[in-house]
């Protein structure tokens, strides 16, 4: 104990055996948000690899990947709420749906411009979240979950019964998107590139938010809200802000989803979508951004592609995956990369303890 006290005075000349862990924070910890050159290189490589997909794959898998990317945008928003801020939500599908309906309505009535549609989806998702969120953010934990579920089901019900947006039939007849007043993007590959570009942009923007002082505030709220209040913060305001932001992100995701499908129905915003988005976050690793994106791809792959070939038993597979993740990988897919650094940290901590005693 004396040794520890001595060390804490900070005036011992002895070199610390903790230097490696000091210089290299856990990759899956808060350090995962820090922008670094290596991280940037990996990000560029992943986007480049994804961008090459239409060159080697046939249109059908490319369309499936487009849906995965659009869904991943929704999941990024859910992760921002659930993983970063600690607010598990089952209502994000509502804002996803609002974005999808907005994009189709803009596409049918106003312009085929993909950018205008996506922006409209963003704004309407933000507005819908701003209107409904003020009630939800007053609650936390299971109550928050139930409130967001209620919001989601209500919005779903509106879409299902409101004839102006097609009721349960949904809205069809959306013309193909175009960019910068150019020709219609008919090939699956072009739509894919557009969706990939927007998804990458959203990912980068959210990563910036998470590493900003505001993101630090959100993580502080997740860890200990009472403590944040005692430091002079108003957690309810920060929670409302992130709820609106997540709504805007979901709105963009919905717009992208509709641009690929060129059709929207109440099924695109139902409970199943919300649950799968939350499942993606859990499988991917709440709080990491790329993990849940992988989770989103996995979930949609099982539901849309694998399920058909195993007699429609996709949900069963998802259930099994969920249970396996909860028991075997409590930090999700994202937890796998940090393992080595974590082990190193554990050993150095143990060594420190031994030295101290």
């Amino acid at each position, binding site marked *: 104990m004396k040794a520890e006290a001595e060390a*804490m005075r900070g005036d011992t000349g002895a070199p610390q055996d903790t230097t490696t862990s000091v210089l290299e924070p856990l990759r899956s910890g808060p350090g995962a948000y820090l922008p670094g050159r290596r991280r940037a290189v990996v990000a560029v490589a992943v986007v480049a690899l994804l961008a090459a997909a239409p060159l080697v794959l046939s249109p059908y898998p490319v369309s499936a990947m487009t849906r995965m990317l659009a869904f991943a945008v929704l999941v990024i928003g859910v992760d921002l709420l659930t993983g970063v801020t600690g607010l598990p939500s089952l209502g994000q599908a509502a804002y996803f749906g609002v974005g999808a309906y907005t994009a189709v309505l803009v596409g049918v009535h106003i312009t085929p411009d993909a950018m205008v549609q996506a922006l409209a989806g963003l704004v309407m998702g933000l507005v819908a979240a701003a209107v409904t969120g003020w009630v939800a953010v007053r609650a936390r934990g299971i109550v928050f979950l139930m409130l967001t579920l209620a919001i989601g089901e209500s919005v779903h019900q509106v879409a299902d019964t409101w004839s102006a947006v097609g009721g349960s039939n949904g809205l069809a007849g959306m013309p193909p998107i175009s960019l910068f007043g150019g020709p219609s993007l008919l090939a699956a590959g072009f739509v894919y590139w557009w969706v990939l570009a927007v998804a990458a942009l959203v990912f980068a923007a959210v990563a910036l938010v998470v590493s900003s002082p505001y993101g630090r505030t959100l993580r502080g709220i997740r860890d200990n809200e009472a403590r944040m209040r005692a430091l*002079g913060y108003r957690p309810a305001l920060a929670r409302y802000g992130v709820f609106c932001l997540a709504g805007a992100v979901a709105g963009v995701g919905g717009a992208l989803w509709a641009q690929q499908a060129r059709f929207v129905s109440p099924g695109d915003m139902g409970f199943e979508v919300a649950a799968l988005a939350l499942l993606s976050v859990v499988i991917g690793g709440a709080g990491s951004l790329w993990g849940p994106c992988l989770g989103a791809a996995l979930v949609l792959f099982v539901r849309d592609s694998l399920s058909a070939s195993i007699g429609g038993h996709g949900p069963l597979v998802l259930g099994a995956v969920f249970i396996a993740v909860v028991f075997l990988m409590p930090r999700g897919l994202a937890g796998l990369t940090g393992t080595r650094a974590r082990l190193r940290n554990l050993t150095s901590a143990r060594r420190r303890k031994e030295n101290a005693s």
Partner: protein
Amino acid sequence: MTETTGLTAAAGTTGTDLLSVRDLRAGYAGTTVLDGVDFTVPAGAVVALLGRNGVGKSTFVHTVMGMLKPYSGSVRVGGRELAGAAAHTVARSGVAIVPQGRRVFAPLTVEENLRIAARASKAPRGGGGPWTPERVYELMPRLAERRANRGDQLSGGEQQMLAIGRALLRNPRLLLLDEPSDGLAPAVIDLIAELLEGLRGEGIAAVLVEQDLHLAFRLADEVAVMQKGRIVHRSSTADFRQDRARAHSLLGVG
């Protein structure tokens, strides 16, 4: 109230008291833990709040901080009435807490723990003060070494330093220290005491809730003893130390 011998803070001195609590009643879910607490802290002074377990010391600190709403009574900080105000309002009035059990942000790094407090200080009423993360690192070089480590990777003593640093970054007028020695080894307590002694020149008033009498006597100008939700004794630290029989009857130690 007849047994409240030695209540030095007479009613007339309120003007110089930074913290002035009158007839504070509070508790949890209808129970009464604080049963009419009268308590003052003169500007710049350190007052130790002593008492056996469960007499309401932590409840008192929580109520002053606005983390628990009182049933009735008055809490004035620098003349401003704060009873029933939200914690963030109390915090922005210049009150900071070093909570029992440290409660640092476990998933955040040391650096982030400090920045989060420093950023909150920019709130209008917090004002720009002398404390910056850099100055905290200077005062506690150990934290500088651990700056990239997560809160839950620190030892108890390091966490306590971080909790103190976090509170200082609020640039407080009044510091609420809730059992800073709790769960720490004697050598580490000594270190924390040294650290807090070094802050005496800053003119920060403090309420020090402590079970460790040596630490309390070392740091405090005055001593108050709580029993069953009331202050039953108040005197200067020197007076209190001289009368061992009284200390024994009040605290069961001595």
